[in-house]
């Protein structure tokens, strides 16, 4: 359903070129729940942006539902985003001036659905996840977990081909994280495709497949039975029991040490190439 072939993304030019994605190959089938892990700056968000049609790849091809979309125009991309992609962001996912119901209905507005119709549909969907009593709340009146759940409902309203979530629980405590993950899990069980970035190995237990990234490339890709933390992630988890955010990052770093180096790793359908285009590894952004 989603097919990336040799997708690269470069920022800047000349000596200052940064390779955010380095010839990534990725196939996502309908119904998969993919968790992406990797250290800060490894290109996870860049990959999501390209799959979500917010960004264009510098090289490579991208087919979404059989259609090549790597180089379509801005207007067309907006429409594909509207109809085929659902987004959940890490923070401030909702528009602060609209209430919950209007937020959920917004993608339908851009499709031209009448106000009464779309509000009705939004209300129905909110009811399904037990948020109907919050529909007239403003976003600031919701807890962080509730905001994310509303954002997930909104992402689903156009019945998209894929839901993309960049660290959806990154700003939540473990309790709220769990509630949000349970919702994503239900959405997955209902047959939806989900692509999620997370720094928390624990959360890979909800995923059906875990993809590890490093320096803009996919370095490991393993299927993971739902309910289980896959081998590689578990290794890190037991080595560094998660307590604080710093520990979390330490955990990620250890994870990266634990996995084979990207040059020698056997990646699915990825021919290892050694041309590195004068790669300049920029200082890693430290988040938060």
């Amino acid at each position, binding site marked *: 359903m989603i097919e990336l072939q040799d997708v690269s993304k470069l920022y800047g030019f000349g000596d200052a070129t940064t390779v955010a994605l380095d010839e990534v190959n990725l196939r996502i089938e309908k119904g998969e729940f993919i968790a992406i892990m990797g250290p800060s700056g490894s290109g996870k968000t860049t990959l999501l*942006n390209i799959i*979500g049609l*917010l*960004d264009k790849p510098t090289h490579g091809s991208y087919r979404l539902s059989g259609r090549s979309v790597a180089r379509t125009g*801005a*207007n067309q991309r*907006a*429409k594909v*985003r*509207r*109809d085929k*992609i659902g*987004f959940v*962001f890490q*923070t*401030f*996912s*909702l*528009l*602060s*001036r*609209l209430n919950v119901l*209007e937020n959920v209905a*917004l*993608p339908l*507005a*851009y*499709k*031209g659905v009448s*106000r009464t119709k779309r509000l009705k549909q939004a209300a129905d969907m909110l009811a399904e996840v037990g948020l109907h009593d919050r529909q007239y709340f403003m976003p600031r009146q919701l807890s962080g977990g509730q905001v994310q759940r509303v954002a997930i409902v*909104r992402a689903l309203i*156009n019945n998209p081909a894929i839901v993309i979530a960049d660290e959806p629980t990154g700003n939540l405590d473990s309790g709220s994280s769990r509630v949000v993950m349970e919702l994503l899990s239900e959405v997955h069980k209902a047959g939806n495709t989900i692509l999620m970035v997370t720094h928390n190995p624990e959360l890979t237990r909800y995923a059906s497949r875990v993809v590890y990234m490093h320096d803009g490339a996919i370095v490991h890709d393993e299927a993971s039975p739902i309910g289980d933390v896959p081998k590689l992630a578990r290794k890190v988890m037991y080595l560094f029991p998660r307590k604080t955010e710093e520990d979390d990052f330490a955990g990620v770093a250890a994870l990266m040490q634990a996995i084979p180096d990207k040059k020698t790793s056997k990646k699915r359908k990825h021919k290892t190439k050694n041309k590195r285009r004068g790669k300049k590894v920029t200082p890693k952004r430290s988040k938060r």
Partner: protein
Amino acid sequence: MLGNDFKMAIAMLRSQKWRSGLAIFSTVVFVVSIATIIGLGASVKHQINTQSKRAGQDLVTVRPGQPFRLNNGQAADINLTYGLGFGAGSLSGHDLKLVKESNGVGQVSAVNFVAGSFKTEEQEYLNGSIFGVEDSFRSLINQDLDFGTFFSPLDDTSHQVVIGRTIAEELFKENVPLGRSLSIRGQNFVVKGVFQTFQPNTLVLGSDFNRAIFIPYQTSLEISDGSNQIVQILAKPAKPGQSESLAKDIKERLFKSHFGQNDLSVLSQKQSAAFSKQVVDKIIAFIAGIATIALLAAGIGIMNTMLLSVTERTREIGIRKALGATNRQLLRLFWFEALVLSVTGAVLGIIGALLANYFLHILTNLKPLVSWQALILPSIMAIALGILFGIIPALKASKKDPIDSLRHEA
């Protein structure tokens, strides 16, 4: 969709009350000032018309200097019908003689300005004017008296005075001060009559006839030792309807006697009114031109408000784009908000102009005639400006890169 845009726009206005308020305020100022200026202009023209009618169509006025020259900046030259122009020299007794000798002339009166103040035993009146006029003056300007009578030909050298309404009230403090006396330059004058209130003459500065007193022409020459200062000569043709030819004849005679110098003006009532209206139009255009600065301020205010709004709402723009809003849909959203600002300003401006009109009527003697055109014209200009200046921030919003916008916090 439009309903949604409207709701968003209102929410934006309310969440940024001060900023939106200022943008709206400058629009309101523009609409109110333009509507009021146009209204005042209309009222002045209306007065010119009614005064012109009151004085009759046949009045010919002779004034020193060239009136209606705006560019030399002499505001005193703006004379309405029989208003008086000071500061442009004066006419001589010889000029008066020539006017009286002209072909087909009927009634004639000089208007001789006498410098100085006048007083009763109790009080001196400082801000009034004294004019020496002939017995035909009253019928020439077609102004009736409330009490008493005007001078007859027999009163030509008498020490009698006819006074304006305001003088009666402020100096004598009674409505009918007939028979009471006042003194000018040490000479005593007995009040013979009181004029009816002269209609307010918006643009005639320093010639409020309600604050003037009138004495016989000959007497006025005597008390100023023969040195006269004729600021105006009024004439009517003997036969009705001959004012144009009379004006022409007077002009020729005076022109010749002044050795071809163009230092005075002879105007028939019609020309006078037409000139006055032209002057009013010019003044309106001039003030409106200045008020256009207010229009620019309004436009920039709207643009600034929207630009700040676009910057502040970068994250929102990113989310909307991620959810599938096209550039055009975003353009419309922000453009619509600018439109709501300018329309709100225009509507409040109309209300403000009506209020200003109301208060000018009850608090001052200005009587602006605010027509619906006077209200609609600046409103449309303000809205057009909102559309024009609103497109820049809207374009900026629609062109934003979704990823950069999403990276923006809050």
